[in-house]
Structures are given as C-alpha cells and as structure tokens.
C-alpha cells in the first residue's frame, strides 16, 4: 500500500481540530454559565425547618399546647396562635410576605371537619400549591404538607396537618 505524504491534508486537519476545540470550549462555557447562573434552591429545606418550628410550637413533647386545646375543648380566639411561634414573615428584602402556613387539627373520630384551623402569612400562595399537586413547578412557591399525631391534656387523640409555603422564587430560581 502506498501512503502519499499530504501536507495540505495536515493543515485541513489542524483547522478541523481547532474547530472541534472551539465547539468544545463553547459547550463548556455554556454549561458552566447555566450551572453557576442558576441560584441554589433552598426553599425545600426552608419549608421543612418552618414545619418543624410550627410542629414544636403546636405540640411539644407529644402534647398539644394548652393555649390551643384545654380540657379537651378548643380555646376561642386562637386565630393568631401562630404569632406566639416566634415567626417573622416580613422582611425589608420583599414587598409582600413570602411565607404562608396553615395548621389544621382533626379529632381521630372525625377527619373531615377540623377542630381548629389557624393560618399565618400571605394566603396568595396557597392556590399555587393546588396547581403543583401532580407536578412540581420551580417558578411557583414550594409547598410542604406534614401530618402528625398528638394528644391533649385529657389524652384525646388528634391528627395535626401542617401546610408550609415558601415563595422567594427570585432568589432561588432563574426567572
């Protein structure tokens, strides 16, 4: 077999090689730009911490707060109970509150009608949770629902359902 030395072919190859390098570099630059340009989304952790704090406030060491239910009866005028939970949903960083939380207490015998329904925060974000029930959408607020079991001072059994919502989309998602 005869191989003919071809200098022209080498030059074409060099151009081709540099074109590959440029394409590779372009690809890497684009990937890095997308990766580092996207903010870290910490809202899921934030909703978890918020839920835990509310759970500790509503029921400490497995017993429901006596400010909510005393002698087996739900206390009246506890719509603002969550104000006692050391939560500050207002921030100079945002115009509107970026959080919303809802606590529902159900007796074990009747899981359809809540004994207590307490809320705090910006309720504009609740509708977005319903939209995301089937598929999570990053541009919308992050929602977390948690249920746990607790008892009151008369050992009546309750299911406590907590919904926590954190928006802060501009700081956690590339919009």
């Amino acid at each position, binding site marked *: *077999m*005869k*191989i*003919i*030395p071809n*200098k022209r072919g*080498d030059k074409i*190859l*060099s151009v081709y090689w*540099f074109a590959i*390098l440029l394409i590779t*570099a372009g690809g*890497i*630059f684009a990937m*890095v730009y997308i990766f*580092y340009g996207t*903010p*870290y989304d*910490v809202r899921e*952790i*934030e909703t978890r*911490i*918020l839920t*835990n*704090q509310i759970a500790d406030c509503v029921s400490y060491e497995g017993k429901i707060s006596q400010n909510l239910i005393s002698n087996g009866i739900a206390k009246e005028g506890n719509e603002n109970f969550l104000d006692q939970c*050391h*939560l*500050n*949903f207002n*921030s*100079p*960083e*945002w115009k509107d509150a*970026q*959080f919303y939380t809802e606590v529902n207490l159900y007796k074990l015998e009747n899981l359809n009608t809540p004994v207590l329904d307490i809320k705090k925060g910006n309720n504009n974000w609740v509708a977005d949770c319903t939209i995301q029930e089937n598929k999570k959408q990053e541009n919308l607020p992050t929602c977390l629902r948690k249920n746990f079991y607790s008892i009151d001072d008369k050992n009546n059994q309750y299911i406590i359902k907590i919904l926590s919502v954190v928006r*802060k989309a501009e*700081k956690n998602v590339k919009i």
Partner: protein
Amino acid sequence: MKKRVDYPNSFTSLLIHPHPPTRGGKKCIRKLNRNKSGTILIENVIFIVLNVLFLVILILFLYRQGNGAIILEQSYAKNIALLIDSAKPVTEIKLNLGDAFALAEKNGVKSEDIVKINENVVTVKLSDKGGYQYSFFNDVDATTYPDISPNKNYIIKINGYK
C-alpha cells in the same frame, strides 16, 4: 521485486495513523525521522503548545467560576439564614469561612464586614460590590462577628427571641 512503503512525515499524521504499515519496525521509524524537516517540528510544537494553552485556560475558567465571589456570597448567605432558622435561643454557631476570608482579603473587604445581620436579613459581602442578601423567618436576635482564633471562623450568636 520489493515494494516501497512511504510513511506519513509529520507527528500529526502519526497520531492519525498510530499503526503505520511496518516493515522492519525501528528501522522504519528511524527512516521517518530522517525525512522530517525542522519546520515540521516547529509546527507540531506550536500545535501542542496551543492545545495545552487551551486546556489551561479552560481549567482556570472553571476554577475561577467555582470560587467566584458571587457564588460564595450566595452559598454562605443562604447557609447562614438556614442555620439561624433552625437555631434555638442561646446558641453559638462557629462557621468555617476560610474560603470567604481569603477572597474578602483579596478584594479588600474587612473581615468584620463579611457577614452582617440587619433585622432578619443576612448579608454576605466578599467583593467591593453590594453582596448577597437572604432573609430568615425565625424571629430571633442574632449577632455575628469574626472569631479571634482561629481567624478562619465566624461566630453567629442567637441571643434570644425578639
């Protein structure tokens, strides 16, 4: 009659043909070297140098992106806000901010100005630009200051509920 075999006469061609038709092994390579001229060698050296330069620039770019002020500011501000959110009163948190101290020093930012808490907003500043802010919901009185020794740590103190 013996057949004459010609070999590619540049390094690049050797790369494309890693197994050139052999006839006598080392002898052939020696023959090949003898045929090369000085100009071809310089061309190849330039080619390799440019490739290495390209790789070095790419690695430096990736390293700088990963350790940039904007990325670190965001990451530390969010971390500190989450730590404060999950902390109970009378807690002292020591946070290793070694990278942040080095970058702040390089950019002329004082160590006392790296982390600031105003109302319920954490601000981390590692360059002479504005810094990054992130708010926390836990209604606590928190203060921050750099640790004296070792000077890579930052102390976040949760004094009590407001």
